[in-house]
């Protein structure tokens, strides 16, 4: 017996929600980034799984999207972490609760 598409989707949904958990409930800015990266990885897993189970495997669309999304995630991590560092320089904190100057 081999795992079905459903199982992969459940795993990826779990990963996504763990990422969401990290992004929503932790106070440190780096956790938010980690959470977002995990959500993106969950989505990637989805793409690859759908490609693997599709009826047209010779068109590697899912793989392509996963590759691009990895590249974009890398860019996002670089800029995000740079932001964390420069925020830390200005406010001496990385706690996102205290970074609320843009409130209405």
């Amino acid at each position, binding site marked *: 017996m081999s795992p079905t598409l459903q199982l992969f989707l459940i795993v990826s949904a779990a990963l996504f929600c763990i990422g*969401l958990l990290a*992004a*929503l*409930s932790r106070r440190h800015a780096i956790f*938010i980034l980690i959470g977002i990266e995990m959500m993106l990885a969950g989505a990637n897993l989805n793409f690859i799984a759908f490609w693997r189970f599709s009826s047209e495997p010779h068109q590697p669309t899912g793989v392509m999207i996963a590759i691009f999304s990895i590249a974009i995630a890398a860019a996002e991590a670089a800029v995000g972490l740079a932001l964390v560092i420069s925020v830390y320089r200005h406010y001496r904190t990385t706690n*996102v*609760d205290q*970074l*609320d*100057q*843009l*409130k*209405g």
Partner: protein
Amino acid sequence: MNSGIVTNLWLIPAIPLAASLAILSLANSRRKSAAALAVIGQVAALTLSIVAFLPTLETPGFRASQNFTWFTFGEQPLRIGWVLDPLAAAMLLMIALVGLCIFVFSVGYMADDKNFTRFFAYLSFFSGAMLGVVIANSLLLLFVFWELVGLASYLLIGFWIERPSAAAAAKKAFITTRIGDMGFFLGILWLYGHSGTLLFYDHGSGCLESAGLAMLGTSATFIALLIFCGAVGKSGQFPLHVWLPDAMEGPTPVSALIHAATMVAAGVFLVARVYPLFSLGAINGVTPSLTVVVWIGVTTALMAALIAIAQADIKRILAYSTVSQLGLMMVSLGVGGVAAGIMHLLAHGFFKALLFLGAGSVIHGCHHEQDIRKMGSLRRLMPATFLTYAVGMMALSGVPLFFSGGWTKEEILHATAHWPKSQVPYYLILAGVILTALYMTRQIIYVFFGKPRAASEHAHESPRVMTMPLIALAFCAIFFTVVLTPAWPWLHAYLTGDPALHFDSGRLIQPVFFVSLVLVTAGIGLGVLMYRRAGLQNQHRPAKTDPLEYAQPTLFHFLENKMWLDELYDRTVVAFAVVSSRVSDWMDRYFWDGLVRAFGGLGQLLGIFTTDLDERGISAGVDETTIGTRRIGRVVSGWHSGQIQTYLGAVAIGMLALLLLYAWLA
């Protein structure tokens, strides 16, 4: 069956141009690299020119061209290309060689200048553009390079941009030559309209070949004259010669390279290049267009020689002498002595560059003093400069036998004497030859003989890097003679493609030789007689009175002020421009402005009506909406906590809601 060099002829202008770009990208402090790049580029161009020269040596009358389509507009392909024939090859060699000497000289002359690298970038740029003019096989390509040459000249004349006079001179040169180029461009358009091609040689269908010429008919005269306008502008012919003496504001190597040896020669070269247009339909070698060329040339030659006598600035004298010699070349072309004209052009290139560089050396030695009346006795202080300068002076004056200028001048005299239409130009040119010898003698006496005066007391010989090019050019000026003499007219045969060339010592001495000898002797003798005292008087002070000024003050002032031509242009052309611009200004201010104001008033009236409508009708409604919006905003802004995680949570909830909505709908 083009040989490799013809296919790759474009490299010759491309290398100096590339060197120029490379130098421009260097930092200002990298002087050595800049000079090295420029000189290496020029050496490469010279080497290629020699390579290009070889096939033309092998085959008399060799001509090969390489054409390709530049771009196509509509259905008309615009073709350009390059050509290699004796004319182009000889010019390439002369330009590259003289250019190299001047580049080397500049390394010494400009050593203290703070914009050293820029200077070499411009020089290389000029050299590339000029080589491009020479190899162009299309009137359009020629025009492009022609304008690039003009640009380079502008940049170099105005090189010392911080001097107002240099800036003005650059502007003057650019605008004056532009007037001629306008005619040139019109000529190009006209020619294209008639023949449909701008290629010179295109396997029988170019505009200079029989098929192309046949299409022109009588309009050839006008086209030729329009093209001649360009030549008049660039070669400083009357009445557009006024910019050339002013161009002496540039650094002296520039004057040598551009305004003596090469660029001004471009006009003569242009006429020689499109000579078939001028001579189309000639009866006995005379056409209306060629006649115009002759008379303009004669006027220029004589007038410039006269003015040169009364000048005091060492470079200006040489500048007027250049104008005069160019006039002579034009005459030669006009009377049918194309080869003679080009030979004189080549010889002139060498010895005039020599003279200018010599003048540069003198100026350098006298701490940037240019007034010959303040110099004197330099022959002892600057022996190398003196000797080479003397060679140049002899060549320019046309001393026979050993100096290249003498032989070419003789050829021109010979050609002019046999012009069927009139003998007047011949006699006028004879007068010009006397005058040339006279003013050169005057200059030499003032500068190198007599007692030392204010500027020359602390003069010193120039460094080796400056004298070596002088010596090289002096050798060229003398040994060039070998291929010029009528006994063995190798260059003549080479240019005309005449294969029958043999040595015949009997032809060495011809009647015109004696005429020339007498004239030159007369000129130099007269000069020595008139000026021998000038050099001796007024030790430690500038020579006060010129002998000619003493004898004929009115004439001298007339000549000293360049026959009042600049002033004449000021009063006529410039004044006309000023008046017409005033008229336009008045029209703009009162007539057109009035119309605009009327429309504006109409608009204002309309505005008054709409304002009323706006205030009463629309504003009230808008106000109410605004108040409402503000209230809503106050409520919503409370939700906007600034906490990123709250937002993220909201997004997640929204996503969940969408999912549920989708499930409910499906």
